[in-house]
């Protein structure tokens, strides 16, 4: 038992758990068996067994049973369910389309029902159930209030509200200006821009996976991995001093985790070239600036022929293609920086403290 726990603890360290989740995500999107009824049940049982057994571990229990964190457990189930449901429908529709049959939605919309009583009645039932649920919840789990605020003392760890934990995780890897203003702004603007960028008319009004694979995989990568998984990590695996803790690990305030990190300029100028840091910021940061220029200006051109997004440039035209690419590459900065931090201790590509400009 202890051996299994320490393996899970080890695997949940970000470099491994994130890699693992990327692999699992790829497998899931590729698999067909997962998105059947049997697949859904098996996943549900696996997750529930994992949680059920883990609750016997006192360290796990303390974190998961905190009133703050109960909704995150619910979130895992809810996201899992809706992800499965959409993919289940999509795969079924794909099969129907292949066989030349009408889609679900098409055959369903043939027969109509009344707003009253059919719709309103089920809405009413939902409302009642939800209210009962909320009342019970607020009675059973007390609001997690703390002592009066003091500006010079912060709880350790200091956690944002759960829905911001993904952003807080982002702040670990980026300058506050980037992670607090630019990237969240781009997330919102980017989501609003999707309908203008995505010109694929397929899949309007019905579930389908085959007809818009790339779009769905990209969106789910952003939502499930970069947003939801980071919330889960921030909730369950970040302990005192914002150190990383495995799910069965005791939250030890004095845990030592060496995290010394360096800038790209230091790696190149000092470690590789063996000369000191140049005095002028432009010379000092030239490699980081070149990398950034390459990443945002050259890479989109190189990716035109990529198999995964083949034909997108022709379909979307240069402007749409570039905007979409820019948003995609910005999103990918997050995992790229996470990996560079974990394996190379990289802090910033570009670190121009002179202008408070850090990437």
């Amino acid at each position, binding site marked *: 038992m202890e051996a299994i726990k320490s393996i899970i603890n080890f695997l949940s360290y970000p470099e491994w758990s994130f890699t693992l989740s990327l692999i699992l995500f790829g497998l899931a999107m590729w698999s067909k068996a997962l998105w059947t009824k049997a697949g859904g049940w098996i996943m549900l049982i696996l997750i529930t067994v994992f949680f059920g057994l883990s609750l016997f571990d006192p360290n796990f229990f303390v974190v998961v049973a905190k009133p703050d964190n109960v909704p995150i457990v619910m979130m895992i189930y809810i996201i899992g369910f809706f992800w499965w449901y959409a993919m289940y429908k999509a795969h079924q529709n794909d099969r129907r389309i292949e066989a030349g049959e009408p889609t679900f939605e098409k055959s369903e919309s043939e027969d109509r029902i009344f707003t009253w009583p059919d719709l309103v009645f089920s809405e009413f039932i939902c409302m009642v159930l939800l209210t009962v649920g909320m009342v019970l919840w607020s009675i059973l789990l007390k609001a997690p209030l703390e002592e009066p605020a*003091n*500006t*010079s*003392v*912060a*709880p*350790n*760890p*200091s956690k944002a509200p759960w829905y911001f934990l993904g952003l*807080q995780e982002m*702040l*670990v*890897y*980026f*300058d*506050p200006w980037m*992670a*607090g203003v630019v990237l969240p702004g781009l997330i919102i603007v980017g989501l609003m821009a999707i309908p203008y960028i995505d010109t694929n008319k397929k899949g309007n009004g019905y579930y389908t996976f085959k007809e818009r694979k790339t779009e769905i995989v990209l969106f789910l990568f952003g939502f499930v991995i970069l947003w939801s998984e980071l919330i889960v990590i921030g909730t369950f695996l970040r302990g*005192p*001093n*914002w*150190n990383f803790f495995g799910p069965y690990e005791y939250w030890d*305030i*004095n845990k*030592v985790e*060496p*995290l*010394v*990190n360096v800038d790209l300029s230091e790696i190149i100028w000092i470690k590789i070239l063996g000369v000191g840091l140049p005095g002028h910021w432009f010379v000092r940061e030239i490699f980081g600036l070149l990398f950034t220029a390459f990443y945002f200006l050259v890479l989109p051109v190189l990716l035109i022929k990529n198999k995964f997004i083949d034909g997108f440039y022709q379909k979307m035209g240069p402007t749409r293609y570039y905007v979409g690419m820019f948003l995609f590459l910005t999103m990918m900065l997050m995992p790229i920086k996470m990996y560079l931090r974990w394996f190379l201790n990289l*802090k*910033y590509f570009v*670190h121009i*403290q002179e202008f*408070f400009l*850090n990437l």
Partner: protein
Amino acid sequence: MTETPEETKPEPAAQASEAKSAQPAKPAKPAAADAEVSRRGFFSWAAVAWVGFTAAAGGCLTAWGRFMFPNVLYEPPTSFKVGPPSDFAPDAVDERFVESNGVFIVNDQGQLYALIAICTHLGCPPNWLEAQNKFKCPCHGSGYYRNGINFEGPTPRPLERAAISIDPDDGQVLVDKAQKFLWERGQWDDPSSFLTA
């Protein structure tokens, strides 16, 4: 004070005059009775109304004045004394003034300086971890050496120093948070950013 007798007196008089005028008017329409307010009655009612209005306005003014002095906790003064220099053991971080004034007093390699307890990443208050000999921020894990230089986590620059000096009158150490010294601007060489112990 002198108003009060006038204020109370008119009331029975007004009632009496009303009663007087009401009696003959009884067979007639009641509306006519209201119209017959005597000159004296009018002025006494006006006085009551005026006093009431003044009182209400005065009350509002008082409340407004009170509003100008809200129940706030005033910030501690930015400049404060932390005791004689001998209070600070060599090579130690003094945490006594963190909660009250938000500074760590660090005695390091023969220098005494005040580090402002605000993380330069996003402004959380970092903790001093004696066992690991570093400051560590609970929000995103930035870490600083004892001397305030950042070495881990996302923060882009070191902690800031506050001005520190010896009070000429009583020889106590005087810290002034209004004046800050930033490492990246080379201000830590400034003689008012540290004391030589």
